[in-house]
């Protein structure tokens, strides 16, 4: 007996390198993080193969990633390639967020044909919950959802829903309401105080106590279709208008609550009813206690901002944008305390998705995940099967964002 105990103490309880095999899959040959795949060294592909990917979200535990693949929801180990289908393939999801029980909330927009008959606009959608039984079945959680954001740790998903009109007056201003969704079998938490206008984007503060909202007022009513930034503290249960933008200015994506004030991307809009990303947009900050937005100078005078996402500690902002109109799109990280901008990618030949939903932080704040593919230049031939290719198609890339070099 003594010998057995001593043997365990001396040799350990298993093979010295046994854990290296556990739970992992051997990635395709281009999965190494040391090689430059077109975004700079250290950038690592997390997915491979054909399919249009969007809305990446890392699980609160940090070991899995979910994303939208051609309109359906999949998830997989962060570095493994064993995809698990979470919805049916024809689902039509636009965004997915993790919930605390490791299920996912998927937003499916209801597309409407615009008045010109050709374009498709997004109307309020429906939020579905996925099952944890390995099937692509879903259950309906909430209807009339206009915007979604996840609380830290997957505690809940905050949604802005279209509130029922209170009068029969057709000129009544649209109103929105906040609802917290915790899971398929959990009760909804409804915040009864309405928000005047239509919520076009929302994000949660890193401490999970407050929501930053982009709200558009209805044209022809008070506010004349102008965009506003609101904050909504859960404990207070009512919205507070932080600022109203000048007429013709639109907010792109969701304002980001940081410990250095609310930050948002805005620019001139030709069509006030749509958030068009093609026009140059700039990054603005509303300092705490102020109602006046100011340009964030730290990014540079000519910087064109496409999307932003606040870090889990609320101290940094991931920004996809361009230094000036002639420079390539890259991922940058803005340190909010020092107002210094550092490049996290060195893109020369990749096309980085600029939709605000296509940017996310890892829960530990060590990396940012974005979606990218090689710039299209006609027909391309590769010496590998399609399922092992990364830059040929839109795929997820993990970009380390700590210890970034100063300057470009």
């Amino acid at each position, binding site marked *: 007996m003594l010998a057995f105990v001593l043997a365990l103490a001396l040799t350990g309880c298993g093979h010295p390198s046994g854990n290296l095999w556990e739970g992992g899959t051997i990635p395709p040959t281009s999965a190494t993080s040391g090689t430059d795949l077109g975004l700079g060294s250290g950038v690592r592909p997390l997915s491979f193969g054909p399919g249009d990917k969007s809305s990446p979200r890392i699980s609160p535990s940090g070991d899995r990633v979910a994303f939208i693949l051609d309109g359906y929801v999949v998830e997989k180990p962060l570095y493994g390639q064993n995809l698990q289908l979470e919805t049916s393939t024809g689902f039509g999801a*636009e965004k997915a967020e993790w919930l605390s029980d490791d299920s996912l909330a998927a937003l499916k927009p209801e597309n409407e044909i615009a008045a010109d008959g050709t374009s498709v606009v997004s109307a309020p959608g429906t939020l579905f919950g996925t099952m944890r039984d390995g099937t692509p079945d879903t259950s309906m959680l909430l209807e009339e959802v206009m915007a979604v954001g996840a609380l830290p740790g997957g505690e809940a998903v905050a949604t802005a829903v279209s509130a029922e009109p209170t009068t029969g007056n057709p000129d009544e201003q649209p109103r929105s309401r906040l609802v917290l969704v915790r899971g398929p079998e959990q009760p909804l938490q409804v915040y009864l105080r309405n928000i005047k206008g239509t919520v076009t984007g929302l994000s949660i503060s890193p401490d999970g106590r407050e929501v930053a909202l982009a709200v558009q007022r209805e044209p022809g009513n008070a506010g004349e279709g102008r965009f506003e930034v609101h904050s909504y503290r859960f404990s207070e249960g009512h919205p507070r208008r932080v600022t109203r933008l000048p007429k013709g200015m639109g907010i792109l994506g969701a304002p980001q609550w940081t410990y250095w004030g609310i930050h948002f991307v805005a620019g001139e809009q030709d069509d006030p009813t749509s958030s068009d990303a093609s026009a140059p947009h700039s990054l603005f900050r509303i300092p705490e206690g102020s109602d006046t937005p100011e340009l964030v100078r730290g990014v540079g005078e000519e910087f064109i901002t496409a999307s932003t996402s606040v870090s889990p500690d609320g101290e940094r902002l991931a920004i996809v944008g361009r230094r000036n109109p002639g420079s390539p799109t890259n991922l940058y990280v803005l340190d909010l305390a020092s107002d210094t901008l550092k490049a996290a990618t060195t893109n020369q030949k990749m096309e980085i998705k600029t939709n605000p939903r296509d940017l996310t932080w890892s829960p530990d704040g060590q990396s940012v995940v974005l979606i990218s593919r090689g710039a299209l230049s*006609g*027909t391309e031939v590769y010496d590998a099967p399609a399922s092992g290719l990364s830059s040929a198609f839109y795929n997820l890339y993990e970009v380390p964002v700590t210890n970034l070099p100063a300057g470009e």
Partner: protein
Amino acid sequence: MRDVILWTLGGLLAFLATAGAFLLLASFGDDAMGSDPIPRAKPSSTTSDREPPPVPLVLTLSEDQLESLQRKPGQRLALNIENGSDEELPSVELTLDVVSENTARPNKRSYQQTLGPLAPGETTEAEFEIDLSLPMPDGMKEKASPGSEGQTREVLEIQAITPEGDSAVKTAVLAP
């Protein structure tokens, strides 16, 4: 009592000696294998002492020909297969899959051919007649998935494999 203590100490010493010998052997193993569970591939070198081993199968596609393909049935695609080995290949199985980039509607079309035998160094041509028509009726473009940007592309994956299991693969992503 003294005998018991002596026997215990003796047993303990014998055990420690055996365990130490095993640990020494294990450390020799670590030196040989390194810490990687998967043996690393040797980096290619331009000044190696030995000639690199011949590639058994070489698959060649003409990019000009790929560029000229149209989204219609009856498109002809020729490709070259070379036996790069020192031995005759009795046969080569060719598989060509045409799929859409959209994984929700892959619309896979598969084509197969068997070639051979191929003498060492011999190159032969294979021609496929493939259907590259879009699955939608004329005049209707395939609707992109929500959130997708742009039109989906067609992907051609060609694999050649010998009875011995040697293979070559090419993937062509056609311009939209």
